């Protein structure tokens, strides 16, 4: 039974309004990272946490989780705890808030004071608070979360309940188990698989591959070669979403019509077309199928002239009035009493947590080299997954990063390299899914397949029967120890009350002394501002920059050699204790210093300044001395040790034609997306007009879901970037070097609860 059925007696989904939530309590929450609507939620979340723009107000975030999440990293108070402790903590919280029996508060709890302070805070913010539990949490956690939300008056204010958007809500594990049973008993003589890859990710006890081979007629519609396709009798190439007409519903129910951007490059077909073939249409056309469907639907709904309706839907991008309406539901009276009879499950000494990978997700994106080489937010790992273990647990077990361990479960075992991760809960081992593919191009053989140990009844957590060192070691390609800028105060942070009373204590006054007169930029002065409060560490900007600027993939061996080419990296910082650290993310592009240390050491003037303050690279002049990289205090320059771009096996269409593809021996770095600046300048010149604020958007800025990055003309006092830079907590990195960076940062502000001791945060 799902939590919603338990609480409301029917399937429902939730819409959150983080803009209204002054208090957010995340239970290993993926609200701003992976849940449906996460982009919208991330934007709301960040907007409510920029005290420079909200008159000194910001939301307060609590997090309890077994493995670090992006929301947990932004929490003002975070506790790392085992899954069984999470249930106990929520029961205690429910008791404290009157949503559960008072005896739940009597149970011994190491975090009782913390929970009491959080409960008081939530209670004082009724109607302006919400709890959110991640999808991996147990049904009881979700039930408790719903009940507490109801008691806090969240429903109808910060949370709206709507009818399910998902086409088939309910247990996926159950449905695939039933299919496997049907295959085993010979009931299935034809199996059409549209999209998924069950041979790779179905629970191992289902023995899906063998059962699939026993089906007389099987077809897989897949975009790439995968494990399921290989096991099927027939394969059909699938088209990409950008290659076919379709429609979809957003997290709030809004319908959008998907328009193709190109004809199928490799003769792919959509799921609609395959279904149409099954229905007897021998030459289906996805556009016609879609249009006919909506013509009928528009007629049923009396939407007037169809051509008007259709063209408007295409032009606007959505079908009007299709968002789901909020429902008024209350938890069933016996919701809590049903929980009271249950007791906590036995606590295994070590517990495995199965979690989707940040890049590969469930394995479906394992063929995307950008995502394979994207450093993960916390581990900074590329090209591999690892068993994530808390520092204390690693010490107790005598493990260090790179040790290979054998992890045994009741019915399976696997070998994995260890990564010691601060902020991980004690005795919990996180095993990222989506790796260990055997039929997937670039990802084949990368990482280990955690699905091999993931049973149908233990989808998200399982007890580990033994964890032993094998004596082997494995080199993990993490970028965390590269580009180090040690011993320097790069992340400035302070408390909200400090910001409101004396922001000068957070960011000391700037020093602008120089023996030389400053260079004047009378026309435009391009500049960037990055808000550390808003950055959630999602890495979207890193990949967007890579796509926009033709940044090549270098492969694991080159990452190990410290040669990753990302023009923009997101540094991850810990402070406090290793077990429950405060976490901060700091995007690091080129600073475009007005007094750039890189320029003065270049013997061939390959890196120079322009009249608008851009620190340019002239690739044809570069002879590869790497002096500039050596002299850059921010470590943001990248060198082509090999002809990486030429070695990347990718179609010509995938390169951005507006950006030079660099060759071997050439230095490169962030250009502030100069191709976009120049295009806009030319357009403005043609129109004999000035460039408007916001007209030039860098790729990182454009992709940032939280608007952490702002770019524009600093000389324009009304520009967004000038306003951000006027903030009292705006600062530049390594100000003491007097490099005068054009990229500046807004200091990180935390909104601590005074009732919670700092030692517990």
């Amino acid at each position, binding site marked *: 039974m799902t939590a919603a059925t338990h609480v409301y007696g029917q399937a429902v989904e939730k819409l959150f309004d983080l803009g209204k939530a002054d208090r957010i309590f995340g239970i290993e929450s993926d609200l701003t990272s992976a849940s449906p609507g996460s982009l919208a939620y991330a934007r709301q979340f960040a907007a409510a946490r920029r005290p420079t723009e909200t008159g000194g107000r910001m939301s307060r975030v609590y997090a309890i989780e077994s493995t670090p999440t992006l929301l947990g990293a932004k929490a003002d108070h975070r506790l790392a705890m085992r899954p069984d402790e999470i249930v106990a903590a929520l029961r205690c919280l429910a008791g404290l808030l009157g949503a559960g029996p008072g005896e739940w508060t009597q149970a011994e709890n190491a975090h009782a004071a913390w929970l009491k302070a959080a409960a008081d805070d939530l209670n004082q913010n009724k109607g302006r608070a919400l709890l959110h539990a991640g999808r991996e949490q147990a049904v009881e956690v979700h039930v408790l979360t719903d009940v507490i939300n109801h008691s806090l008056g969240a429903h109808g204010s910060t949370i709206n309940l709507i*009818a399910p958007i998902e086409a088939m809500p309910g247990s996926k594990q159950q449905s695939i188990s039933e299919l496997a049973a049907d295959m085993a008993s010979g009931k299935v003589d034809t199996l059409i698989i549209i999209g998924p890859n069950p041979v790779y990710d179905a629970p191992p006890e289902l023995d899906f591959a063998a059962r699939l081979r026993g089906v007389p007629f099987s077809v897989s519609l897949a975009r790439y070669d995968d494990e399921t396709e290989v096991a099927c009798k027939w394969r059909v190439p699938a088209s990409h979403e950008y290659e076919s007409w379709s429609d979809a519903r957003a997290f709030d129910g809004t319908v959008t019509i998907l328009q193709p951007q190109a004809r199928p490059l490799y003769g792919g077909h959509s799921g609609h077309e395959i279904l149409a073939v*099954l229905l007897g249409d021998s030459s289906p056309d996805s556009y016609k199928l879609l249009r006919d469907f909506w013509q009928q639907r528009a007629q049923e709904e009396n939407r007037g002239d169809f051509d008007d309706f259709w063209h408007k839907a295409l032009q606007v991008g959505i079908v009007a009035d299709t968002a789901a309406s909020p429902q008024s539901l209350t938890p069933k009276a016996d919701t809590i009493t049903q929980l009271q009879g249950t007791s906590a499950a036995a606590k295994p000494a070590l517990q495995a947590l199965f979690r989707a990978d940040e890049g590969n997700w469930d394995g479906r994106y394992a063929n995307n080299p950008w995502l394979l080489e994207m450093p993960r937010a916390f581990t900074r790992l590329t090209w591999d997954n690892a068993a994530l273990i808390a520092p204390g647990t690693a010490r107790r077990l005598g493990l260090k990063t790179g040790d290979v361990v054998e992890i045994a479960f009741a019915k399976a075992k696997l070998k994995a390299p260890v990564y010691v991760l601060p902020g991980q809960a004690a005795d919990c081992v996180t095993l990222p899914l989506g790796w260990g593919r055997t039929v997937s191009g670039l990802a084949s053989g990368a990482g280990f397949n955690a699905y091999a140990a993931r049973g149908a009844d233990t989808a998200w957590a399982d007890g580990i029967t033994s964890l032993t060192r094998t004596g082997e070691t494995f080199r993990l390609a993490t970028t965390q120890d590269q580009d180090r800028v040690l011993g320097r105060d790069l992340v400035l942070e302070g408390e909200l009350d400090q910001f409101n009373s004396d922001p000068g204590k957070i960011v000391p006054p700037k020093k602008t002394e120089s023996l030389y007169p400053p260079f004047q930029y009378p026309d435009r002065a391009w500049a960037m501002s990055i808000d550390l409060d808003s950055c959630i560490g999602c890495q979207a900007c890193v990949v967007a920059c890579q796509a926009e600027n033709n940044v090549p993939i270098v492969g694991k061996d080159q990452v190990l050699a410290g040669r990753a080419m990302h023009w923009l990296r997101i540094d991850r910082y810990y402070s406090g204790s290793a077990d429950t650290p405060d976490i901060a993310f700091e995007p690091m592009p080129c600073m475009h210093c007005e007094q750039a240390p890189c320029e003065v050491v270049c013997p061939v003037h390959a890196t120079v300044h322009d009249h608008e303050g851009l620190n340019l690279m002239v690739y044809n002049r570069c002879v590869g001395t790497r002096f500039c990289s050596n002299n850059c205090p921010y470590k943001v320059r990248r060198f082509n040790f090999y002809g990486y771009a030429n070695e990347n096996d990718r179609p010509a269409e995938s390169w951005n034609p507006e950006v030079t593809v660099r060759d071997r021996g050439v230095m490169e770095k962030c250009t502030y997306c100069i191709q976009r600046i120049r295009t806009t300048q030319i357009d403005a010149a043609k129109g004999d007009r000035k460039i408007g604020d916001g007209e030039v958007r860098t790729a990182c800025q454009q992709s940032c879901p939280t608007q952490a990055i702002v770019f524009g003309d600093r000389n324009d006092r009304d520009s967004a970037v000038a306003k951000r830079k006027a903030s009292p907590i705006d600062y530049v990195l390594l100000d003491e070097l007097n490099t005068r960076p054009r990229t500046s940062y807004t200091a990180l502000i935390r909104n601590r609860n005074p009732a919670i001791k700092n030692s517990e945060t």
Partner: protein
Amino acid sequence: MRTLMLASAVAVMALSQAAFAQNQASNTQAASQPSANSGQTPPAAQQIQQDLKKAGFTDVKVVAE
């Protein structure tokens, strides 16, 4: 492909993608409608089943992973 049409039992496995999006305005999936958990198939999957049965398939099952 006509051979397919004659198949006596078909199991169609679809991801979360419906054949066509359900429109909330005329939604058959409103609060009063049965949910998956009440043992009835929701409309998108049901529609696929019905269409395939009309086309001659029998014992069709739609599975989501």
